[in-house]
Each structure stands twice: as C-alpha cells, then as structure tokens.
C-alpha cells in the first residue's frame, strides 16, 4: 500500500505517501453519515425563513402527531439552567450579550436560525413533519450592512496601534486611500456537518460521534451546557470530510442533538443537508476596509491606517473576535511600518453568523494591504515589486515585534528572510518572462495582467499540545495525539516524526486521535497547528522513549509529553499570478499561478504541496466564483450549489509551488511552521492586482465575477 517509504532515519522531510488513504479509497472509511445504530432516529431542524423577526406563535402539535415522529422540541423544552453557547477564544466583556442559544427563544436573527427540531423514524418522515411546524413571525427591520448599521449592532470595537499615525499622514508627501470590500463566502467542506448522539443507560455516559477539529474543547462546552461532569461525556472523531476552520466549532446542533438523545432515550442522528450547511454553518470573510497608506517621495512606507467593519452575522459564536483580531494583528504583513493604526468594528447583522475560514482575517487583510500598495505604486509610477522590496523587513530585524497583538498577546515575528523569498519567487515563476508576456499583444478582446501579493501567516495559536507514545513488546508503536484530523494528513506526518525519532519503520507506527476516552486532553486542529505543536509533542515523547530504550529498558514502555510554546510561528510567502481577461464576457483566465512559501521545515513536502494547492483553489474560488448573496430582505439567495459556485477541475488553475526552508523557527524543536493557510491567504489580493493590471483600473472589491469584470473592462475600452 504505502509506496514510497523512506528509510526510518530520513523520514522527516520525506515525500511519504499517506497512511490514511486505504479506507478512503476503498469506501470502507466511516463518516458520521455512515453510522447506524439500533433504534436510531433522525433529527431535522426547523429554521427561520426570515432574517429578523419576533416569534409570535409556535405550534408544533401537528408535527408531533405526524407519522413516524418520536419528538419535537423547541426552546421551551430545553433546560431552564441552559446558557447560550460560550466563546472559546478571543472573548471580551460585553460579547456575552450577543451569544446564540441552541434554539431561538423569542426572536430569530438570521434566515436559518433554528427554532425547533423534529425527530422521526427516518429523515424522510422527519422532513415531512418539519413542514407541519407552524411559526408566526412578526418581521423586524433587518440589518444587512456592517458598515451602515445602527450603533447597538456593534458587538465590539478595538484599536491596535503604534507610532504617531496622524503626524505621519499630516507630513507625508504621498497618501493613497481606498474603500475596499471583501465579500461573504465560506469554507463549505464537501461533507456537511453531522452528529450521532447516544446515551448509555447503564453507564450514564453520553457518546457523540462526528466530533471534529476540537473534540476535547467541545466536550468541555457540552458538559458545561448540560451541567454534567466531563467524564460522562465522550466525543469521538470519525473520518472528517474537510474542515477549513468552519467544521468542528460548537454549533447549536452540537447541544440540541445530544440533548434529544438524552430526552428521547434513543440514538439520534442529524446529518446536515447542503441547503442547511450554506445557511447554518459559519460564513466568513465579509469586511469593508477604509484603508490609507502614507509614503515619502521615495516610496518608503511612513504609516498605515485602517478602519474596518467585520460582518459578524446574527450572533457572536465560539470564535469571539478571532477574525477581526487576526485582521488587525496581521494587516502589517512583511513590511516595516513606523506608525500603524487599525480600528476594528465587529458588527452584528441579520445574516448567518460568521467565523473562521482558512487564513481568517488575513485573506481580507492581505487583499486590502496588497491592493493599496499596488495603487500607491501606480501613484508613484514605481514598479510594484520594487515598492514592496524597499519596505520589506530585513533578516537582521528578527525577532520582530510588529507592535500588534492577538487577543492581547504581542505579535513577534520569529524568523524570516523576506527579500530572499521574494527573489526566489520571482526567479522560480519567471517574473521577467511574465512581464514580457504581459507586454506582448494578446488575442483580440483579451487583456493580460500580472499581479503579486506578499503575506505573513501565523501558525499554532493555542499554545500547547499533548502526545503519548507507547511501544509494545512486539515493537508496535502507538501515538496518541491531542490533535485532530480534518483530512490534512495528520497521521502520516506524526508517524514520520515518531518513526524517525524512535528509528522504527513507518508502518509500525499507528496514530490515534479524536477520542476523548483514549486521549486525555488536546487542543485539536486549527490555525495550522496540528503538525507543528502536535508534532513537537510527539517528538518530545518519542525522544524520551528513545532514551529509555537506549538505556536498555524493555518494552512495553510509554512516554507522555505536553509541548508548550508561548509564541506563534510566522511562515511567509508570495503569490504570483498572470491572467488573461476577456473584455466581453468578463472571464478571468489564469495563465500562470505560483506560490512560494517558507515554512521553516517541511515534515512532508507531498502533504505541504497538497495543502498549498488546495488552499489556492479555495482562494481563487473565493476571488472569482463563490459569493453568499443576500437580497434586500436578508434572504440568502445563493443557498444551493447551483448558485454557490465551488471551483471545478476546469476552473481551478494548475499551481506551481516553491517550498523553502530558509527560516526555521526556534519556537519548536522541529523548526516547522504551519503550512495550512498560505495557499488561500493571498489569492484574493494577487488576483485583484493582476486583473487591475490587465484592465488598468482600480479593483476595489471581490469577487471578480464576470459581470463585474466586464463592467470594469467596458469602463476602460
């Protein structure tokens, strides 16, 4: 099965084929929708069809008496002791007013807000009965724009700054300012969410199958909401059909479905359908920036000033202020800023709540900053590459405190050689050839453009991870990690680290994760952390075990480790793209796409490339195709795959990847920086710059849909 197995000694850094593949290739994998249980019943949620309304009346009796129905629950049936779903990170006093209850109580705040759950013998019967739940809604005025919302819609506002921004702008010879929009789109994993919850009547233990991303965190939340001790709640991760930041957070269904299982005394399955997924699972990315850049006559950056509005949707969910926090923290990017001020507004609207999606807050920030830098370059008649180069941080600047912070923790870039990576990228992706290509005449009706965008990513935001390594008398090795698998190849990467450290064959290492019974604690998989923090923990445990074996101790042996790191690591990269824009149709055809990414150390380049290419496809999809569109009444009108357009193989571009390891991080023993998000992080920025270059116009918003691009082209013909 595993084709290319490197000798144990050189496993870290080898292109090892994955351990995970066999069941996924043969159809024996077990996703939550595959789970069957004796007596299992099926839940369907009744969701608000309106954006904002008071619930005047709610009649579930007709549904209760429908064929096959075993239960119908509304907010009134939930425990009086219940509290709303808590924030798990980036919280702040005052936000608690905006939390979501598992089922809407007196008002609904977005189309898709769950108001009742119907449980029946099968999904068909449950959907029949759900149609019979009668709700009277008294419409309230919906808020649909974060940048034009009434004051009471603002959940939080904060400022991140250093230096004297006002003075810098007052004295600057050159100032460029723009209002830039990033549209609402979402992670949309191909497997929608789902849960199967079951209460063991004898042990009194509640088991929830279908956990993802952060099983231990969600066990704590679920136990707290139920008022149960944690040891009576078990979360189990099965195969997971993609996460990208959205799946695995604690959602209303994560309480309601287990509660139904307890209340009804039967295993309850809920499998989200695609329409629900698009209306109920976290959205992301919708920001409006009022951003200004001050430069001197030579193009030296004097100051960056931004005020942005982050559309939070109907409630503040588990992520709290992560997205606006990340935007404000990482907007500076790879450049030196004598003065910086970012004013963030986290605003509630009557749309689906928004949370994190791959490179959260950064996809938006990179678009705003890199777009504005191109505008400045045009203003100064400077080459965009040269303007960037003049302002990049230098190797001697590291470690570099940006003067910003994440959730109060200072951002200190660990290592980097930004000019070197820029040079390597331009060389590898033949920037000069692309410039010649751009200058050469295109076919009639086509316009050529090239663009690039630089960015600094971050990885490992939660500060620790757990691992245990066991070797038995036969020499078989088990690795237990607190990390989680969302399809990224966690088992393979950790097995490589363990096998090399213990000097055992890769095949003899089994990686176990995601079961709160077998793994005592863990943080999970988000923010590109599983391989770096999780891998470091495995490295420590395996190393300790190795020493005992070398000392002559006999298996079976086990070692535990908890790797902690105060600071995040900061990989950095460059996106380069060349496009041909068709004036009449507005079609943007990608001629060449390259990503250079320095991640300190690549544990498995095969997997890293997979992460980057997959990230680019999502970033390009977001920039060209994907948009969650609401009408004037707050109705999501792209609530199906007929209107929410994921890129297919025909639209996703071939991507050239350059992985460099010039700046390993001292912040973990592997020297590795997380690689999960760089492929998406600057795609919107680079494409916008390329299209602006092709048409010689300002591009001030995404997505670059054919109609919008054609309009831009018409304005310039």
């Amino acid at each position, binding site marked *: 099965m595993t084709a290319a197995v490197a000798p144990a000694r050189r496993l870290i850094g080898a292109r090892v084929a994955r351990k*995970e593949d066999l069941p*996924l290739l043969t159809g024996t994998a077990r996703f939550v929708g595959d789970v069957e249980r004796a007596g299992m019943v099926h839940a369907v949620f009744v969701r608000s069809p309106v954006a904002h309304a008071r619930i005047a009346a709610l009649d579930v009796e007709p549904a209760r008496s429908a064929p096959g129905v075993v239960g119908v629950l509304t907010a009134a049936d939930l425990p009086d002791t219940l509290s709303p779903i808590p924030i798990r990170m980036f919280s702040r006093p005052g936000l608690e007013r905006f939390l979501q209850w598992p089922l809407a109580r007196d008002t609904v705040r977005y189309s898709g807000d769950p108001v009742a759950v119907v449980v029946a013998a099968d999904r068909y019967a449950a959907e029949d009965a759900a149609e019979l739940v009668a709700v009277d809604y008294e419409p309230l005025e919906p808020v649909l724009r974060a940048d034009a919302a009434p004051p009471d819609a603002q959940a939080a506002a904060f400022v991140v700054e250093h230096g004297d921004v006002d003075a810098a702008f007052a004295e600057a010879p050159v100032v460029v300012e723009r209002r830039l929009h990033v549209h609402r789109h979402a992670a949309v994993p191909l497997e929608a969410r789902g849960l199967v919850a079951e209460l063991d009547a004898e042990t009194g233990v509640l088991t929830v199958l279908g956990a993802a991303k952060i099983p231990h965190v969600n066990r704590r939340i679920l136990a707290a909401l139920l008022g149960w001790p944690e040891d009576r709640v078990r979360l189990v991760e099965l195969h997971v059909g993609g996460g990208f930041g959205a799946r695995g957070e604690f959602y209303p269904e994560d309480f309601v479905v287990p509660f139904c299982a307890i209340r009804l005394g039967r295993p309850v399955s809920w499998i989200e359908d*695609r329409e629900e997924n698009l209306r109920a699972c976290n959205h992301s990315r919708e920001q409006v920036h009022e951003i200004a850049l001050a430069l001197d006559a030579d193009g030296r950056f004097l100051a960056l000033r931004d005020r942005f509005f982050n559309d939070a949707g109907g409630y503040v969910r588990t992520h709290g202020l992560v997205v606006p926090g990340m935007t404000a923290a990482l907007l500076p990017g790879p450049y030196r800023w004598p003065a910086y001020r970012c004013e963030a507004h986290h605003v509630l609207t009557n749309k689906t709540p928004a949370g994190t999606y791959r490179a959260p807050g950064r996809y938006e920030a990179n678009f705003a900053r890199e777009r504005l830098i191109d505008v400045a370059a045009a203003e100064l008649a400077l080459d965009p590459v040269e303007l960037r180069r003049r302002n990049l941080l230098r190797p001697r600047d590291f470690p570099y405190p940006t003067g910003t912070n994440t959730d109060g923790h200072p951002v200190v870039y660990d290592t980097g050689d930004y000019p070197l990576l820029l040079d390597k990228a331009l060389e590898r992706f033949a920037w000069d050839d692309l410039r010649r290509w751009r200058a050469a005449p295109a076919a009639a009706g086509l316009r050529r453009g090239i663009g690039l965008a630089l960015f600094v990513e971050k990885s490992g935001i939660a500060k620790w991870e757990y691992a245990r390594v066991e070797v038995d008398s036969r020499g078989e090795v088990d690795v237990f990690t607190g990390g989680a698998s969302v*399809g990224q190849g966690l088992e393979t990467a950790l097995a490589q680290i363990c096998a090399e450290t213990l000097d055992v064959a890769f095949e003899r290492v089994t990686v176990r994760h995601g079961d709160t019974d077998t793994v005592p604690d863990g943080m999970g998989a988000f923010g590109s952390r599983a391989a770096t923090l999780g891998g470091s923990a495995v490295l420590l445990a395996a190393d300790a075990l190795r020493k005992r074996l070398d000392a002559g101790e006999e298996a079976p042996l086990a070692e535990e480790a908890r790797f902690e790191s105060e600071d995040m690591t900061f990989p950095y990269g460059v996106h380069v793209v060349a496009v041909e824009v068709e004036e009449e149709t507005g079609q943007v055809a990608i001629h060449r796409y390259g990503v250079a990414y320095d991640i300190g150390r690549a544990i498995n380049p095969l997997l890293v490339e997979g992460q980057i290419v*997959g990230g680019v496809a999502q970033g390009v999809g977001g920039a060209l195709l994907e948009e969650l569109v609401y009408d004037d009444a707050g109705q999501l009108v792209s609530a*199906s795959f007929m209107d929410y357009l994921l890129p*297919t*193989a*025909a639209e996703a571009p071939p991507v050239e990847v350059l992985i460099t390891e010039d700046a390993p991080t001292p912040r973990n023993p592997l020297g590795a920086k997380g690689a999960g998000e760089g492929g998406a992080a600057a795609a919107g920025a680079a494409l916008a710059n390329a299209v602006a270059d092709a048409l010689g116009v300002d591009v001030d918003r995404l997505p670059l849909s054919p109609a919008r691009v054609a309009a831009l082209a018409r304005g310039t013909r």
Partner: protein
Amino acid sequence: MTTRTISVEINGRAYWGTVEPRLLLSDFIRHEAHLTGTNVGCEHGVCGACTVQLDGEPIRSCLMLAVQADGRSVRTVEGLAPADGDLHPLQQAFHEVHALQCGFCTPGFLMTIEAFLASAPADLDERAIREALAGNLCRCTGYQNIVEAVRLAAERMRA
C-alpha cells in the same frame, strides 16, 4: 403511501428492499444495502460525490429513485478493487500522488474516472482530463494531483 419491493444488483450481488417510490437511489445504496462508500454531498446533482455506475455508466445516485434501479446493475466504489485485495490501478495512483485529502469526494471521482478511462483516447491532454472531472467537486486538493493520478493510471492501464 404505497411501497414497492425492488431488487438492485450492486457490485454483482442482488439487494432486495421494500421502499417508498420517493427513496433516492443514493439512500438505498447507503442505508438499505449498507454500502456507505458512496457519499452524498449536495442531493441536488452538483457535487458528484454520489456518483455510481449504472449499467457501466456514471450517474448521480441522488438524482435517481431507487425504484428506477429495480432490475438494473449498479457499481459502487466497494466494487472497484479486484477481489484479490489489491487496489485498482486508479486507486493505487490516487494513493501514490496524494490525490485525496479528506477523501469524501474520492469514491465519486473514482467511479467517474474509471468509466472515463475505459473510453478515453490515448493522447489525454490536461484540458480533456479536467473537463472530464468537472462533474465532481473536491474542496481539498485543488484537483492538481487528481489530474496527475488520472494520467498515471491511464498510462499504467494502457501498458
């Protein structure tokens, strides 16, 4: 509502069921025949995750009623690998070039491509491959390695 008793041959074996006419073929395969390798990603015929072969031709099993498959022959991902425990060359190629990540879309891709390769010309260019794949959505890989796997498998299957 009336029900019907049907028999569908899946991967060479007959599966009987008494079903409502409205039962989707995808649900029959997954929950009556308990062959859960075929996944369901949208249930409106866009994502391709539920692709199976009906009498040898790839179709969307979420857009067909189970009763319509009565007496027909269906092939799913479980029927792809030869009995001897080896992998189909296509599965092997997917593994070697890392053409899957979360793997949820993979069975649909395999059933589409397997039929495609059976009738594909020898000189497969990238455009042709990408268009042949366009009826299946993947959210993880960006498709690049899937295209690569198709090339590799085509090569080996010709040899």
